[in-house]
């Protein structure tokens, strides 16, 4: 497949403070004790996409990520790590590495996706329609701590937050409208010309753009060149392409046929169009009908691949998402973790030591070399490697990263304890985040707080 894959791994995302730090860029945050980036790499490998460019914001972070990649998967994948300046946005990042891009089509993924949807199918959809851009949509995740099973009443009251508003054609193959970010707060304005051409549009607010795109390289580069103000692929480039899909002549004139004979969106030759239609063995899409009606017009197609509702796809872009992903990967979506679970639906590393009367419930993970004292209880939590946990400790719905120390009698709920952090005796935390290396004093009680050194 002539696809180049770009993974936008971000840098030190401000949304994830204090979980991220100079030591741990976003891409290396652990999900079930593996960096989140490894999930994307595995996913791509499973689709046999091995030629990757990982784009990281900031030199330091790039070094960190590069170091991890070379240690983890240098033998399996061909990965290039490119550093771009910070805060250039997703579009800016692509602009910065544009000289690396040579293939006809580019697959762009966000590096924080944990999913089991095959990017290969996105690529296939893209090719099938000869589209300018193909976006992958998935059902909106239900956020927040869901007590797996028996929480039906709670789920009903929970309204999924509306992320994107998406307009699809009747065949659910083409993207006709997209509103993201702040736009969804306004009234939806649908361009009549597109609606008229398509005849019917289904507007969905229960789908989410999952940040996996296939772009035609020529189109993408042209848009990026022409619109220097575009910062984000999702909020600027994609909506722009969708808006202009029936009048793409804006960028068809200056660049004609490319060397390898791949015409872009404007295939002058009617025979080519015809053969394309035949090869699709389907009715011409509304784009072609529209083109034939107005012969001076050129169109490009914006396609979608809608993932099956049973598939899992979450982006790790907030602390809540971090909790959710960790919970799901060892819980409901445990096929993603790549670990084999014990009969108790948990993973306790053989080298981990458990004290007497300590219980580790289902949907838990206990990393290599960790020690847990007596009379502890661990439920739906992930505990990293070489953690030292005292006696009488309760850990529920939490993530404890590597080398953390938790004193006797602590109670931790819905919290994240970063690596090397220390909780002294009898600390009670609820919905808190503790920065790496931070020490929480003995006996304190906290709720919904963030502990970080100034």
């Amino acid at each position: 497949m002539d696809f180049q894959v770009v993974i936008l791994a971000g840098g030190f995302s401000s949304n994830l403070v204090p979980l991220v730090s100079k030591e741990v860029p976003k891409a290396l945050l652990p999900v079930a004790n593996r960096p989140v980036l490894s999930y994307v790499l595995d996913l791509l490998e499973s689709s046999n996409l091995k030629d990757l460019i990982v784009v990281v914001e900031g030199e330091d972070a790039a070094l960190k990520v590069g170091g991890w990649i070379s240690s983890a998967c240098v033998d399996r994948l061909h990965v290039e790590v490119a550093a771009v300046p910070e805060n250039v946005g997703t579009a800016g990042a692509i602009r910065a590495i544009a000289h690396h891009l040579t293939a006809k089509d580019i697959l762009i993924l966000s590096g924080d996706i944990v999913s089991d949807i095959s990017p290969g199918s996105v690529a296939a959809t893209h090719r099938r329609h000869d589209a300018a851009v193909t976006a992958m949509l998935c059902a909106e995740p239900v956020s927040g701590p869901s007590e797996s099973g028996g929480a039906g009443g709670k789920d009903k009251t929970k309204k999924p937050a509306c992320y994107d508003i998406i307009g699809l054609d009747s065949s659910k193959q083409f993207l006709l409208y997209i509103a993201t970010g702040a736009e969804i707060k306004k009234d939806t304005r649908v361009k009549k010309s597109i609606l008229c051409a398509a005849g019917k549009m289904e507007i969905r607010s229960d789908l989410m753009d999952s940040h996996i795109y296939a772009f035609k390289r020529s189109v993408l580069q042209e848009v990026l060149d022409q619109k220097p103000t575009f910062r984000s692929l999702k909020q600027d480039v994609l909506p722009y392409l969708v808006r202009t899909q029936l009048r793409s002549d804006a960028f068809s004139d200056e660049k004609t046929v490319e060397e390898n004979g791949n015409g872009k969106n404007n295939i002058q030759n009617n025979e080519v169009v015809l053969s394309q239609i035949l090869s699709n063995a389907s009715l011409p899409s509304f784009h072609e009908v529209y083109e034939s009606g107005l012969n001076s017009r050129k169109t490009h197609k914006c396609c979608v691949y809608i993932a099956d509702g049973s598939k899992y796809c979450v982006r790790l872009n907030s602390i809540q998402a971090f909790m959710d992903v960790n919970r799901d990967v060892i819980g409901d979506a445990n096929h993603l973790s790549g670990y084999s679970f014990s009969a108790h639906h948990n993973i306790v590393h053989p080298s981990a030591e458990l004290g007497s009367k300590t219980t580790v419930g289902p949907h838990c993970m206990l990393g290599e070399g960790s020690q847990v004292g007596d009379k502890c209880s661990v439920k739906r939590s992930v505990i990293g490697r070489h953690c030292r946990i005292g006696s009488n400790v309760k850990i529920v719905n939490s993530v404890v990263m590597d080398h953390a120390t938790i004193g006797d009698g602590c109670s931790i709920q819905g919290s994240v304890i970063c690596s090397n952090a220390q909780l002294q005796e009898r600390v009670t935390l609820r919905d808190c985040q503790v920065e790496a290396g931070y020490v929480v004093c003995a006996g304190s009680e906290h709720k919904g707080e963030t502990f970080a050194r100034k």
Partner: protein
Amino acid sequence: MVAQKKGGGARVSEDAEEQSRQRLQAILLADSFATKFRPVTLERPKVLLPIVNVPMIDYTLAWLESAGIEEVFVFCCAHSMQVIEYLENSEWYSHPNLVVRTIESHKSISAGDALRYMYEQQTETSQILGDFVLVSGDTVSNMPLADLIQEHRERKKKDEKAIMTMVIKKSKSSSLTHQSRLGTDQLFIAVDPLTKQLLHYEEDKIDLAKGSVCLEKSLLDGNPSVLLFNDIQDCYIDICSPEVLSLFEDNFDYQQLRRHFVKGVLVDDIMGYKIFTHEIHSSYAARIDNFRSYDTVSKDIIQRWTYPYVPDINFSGNRPLKLGRQGTYRACDAVQSRSADVGASTVIGYGTKIGNGDIILNSVIGNGCSIGSNVVIEGSYIWNNVTIEDGCEIRNAIVCDGVKIRAGAVLQPGVVLSFNVVVGRDFVVPAYSKVSLLQQPTTEDSDEELEYAESSSGAVDHSSGVNLQIESKASELGPDGAGYIWEVCEGAHDEEWKHSVAPIPKDKLAEITQAIDDDDTEDESVLPPSGELKSDADSINTDVNDPNDDYYYFEKEVEGTFLRAIDENIKVDLVTLEINSLRLSFNMESADCAGAVFYSMMKQAVDTPHNSASELYRNASSIMGKWKELLGFYVKKIDEQIEVIMKFEEMCQESPKELGPVFTQILHFLYEKDVLQEDAILRWAEEKAGADEADKVYLKQCEKFIQWLKEASEEEDEDDEEEDS
């Protein structure tokens, strides 16, 4: 049934029985409350106009009868005597399965009035027992109704608020002309895919077309999925619950069913009432709304889409014609010369004579016509008792009863000849002209008027009036002709081709194509530059509850009020009254009013088409100049003035490309017009001075202006001091 009668099922079965006992009723509006069929409708009501040689109302009644309707109320308005007389003499009055009652009202000038009248009658006689079908007398359909009514009733039982079910049908409107094949304007509707509830209804006149359809955000909040259709045609067949009548009574300003009632229910959310849709797939339903749909529906009838309501079947006392090859229907006693060439899809009525060498194609010819030799008739509708002399050429025209077309005359496409017009020898009737013996009514005020003008209704006395007019106004249709060629009213000229029987000419199509091109480029520039200035691309905003929701709706309302004020030229003090009441009901501050009013004005300026910043400025200044008093009323205090500036800044930040360049200009304009005082501007500048750099873009832009203001005020101060000392 027997089992149900026992025990607990008793009540249910009673209900069911009551329902089944309930008579199926329909209200048929025998008046379209429009003037689209003028001048023909000056002399005869629209529902009695023949379509493929049978009056329209017969199609409607025959369909209602076969669909199981037991009682029809025919609401007669214009030419009510003619309708009643026709019905009395028809077989409908003595029909065994269908009771036809006529209701006469001369005061009603709209469908809304008609339904209000029905409601008043209802209180006395209570004729309407339950759900009823509301149709117009110009509907041709063969869809079954019983299931649909059942569906409506069941829905009503579950949901008290489901008061209407609207029938829709798929029909792709042309991407060029933006009108359906029935010649109606394109329609945008939004429907909930699961419940089929109608969520949005927008009929769009092409000349008023804005580039986009706007769906309220609340609409998407409630529904994960909304279907937005453009390829749907409204059949104007509604199943209504009795509440519909009372709604019309309550809202005395509702005139039209769609534009007012449906909009009202959807937008104003009256008592939470809901409208649902029902899509028909295999059956036929269409309303004859204009001459183009007359043409389309005629063709559909000839091509048997409306079966069993086709010319070779007797469905309403019509004499069936014989069906020949290629969709030709001919009366058994029609006389046709051997040398005449009668082509496909043609209907020839009883007692009609066709001369030598005639060429007739795709046309309908009524009863008792006599057509001379070497006549060409193409795509035309010739009604009864028409005389066409030798060598005439008629293309895409409608020729009413009793017309005489003298030898060698030519009717160009789109011509409509009303009753008893005489076209002179060798006269060429120009394309799209409408000819009548009656003079064009001089006072045309709006489209909401009767089919006939009150004054001329008495003059429809054929025998006396005609001769006089032939002599006095013979010249308009040649020396030996009779009739007035109606002048096309200003502005409507461009519209003429849209609703005519004639196909759209090629050059017009090319013109539209061009226009669409221009349109598109234009609305691209109007589109807001999306999220170009948004900073964090990764962030997804998850909070749904907007604390400003209230204000947002308030602003919307004010904007709507202001738009109405512009459209209908309402006086300033009335507008303030209205806005004040809005303020109270939304519990807003007067500063909010100032912001909202200003916002509406700027919005209006932005929405008015403009190409450059200077034009936008001109728009804005003209609007604000005109409504200065209104703005002045709300912008008295310094606080309110500051609110206005802040609002303006906010708007600029939202669409920096458009409004950005004119910020200073407009600020200056407001200052000159005394809407804003320098104190307010200076205080705003002071407040802003401490803000973020990003926030100061506009402050910087008008730095000079502020500097100038400061200096001016200092000078003044000095002056004051001097005076003091």
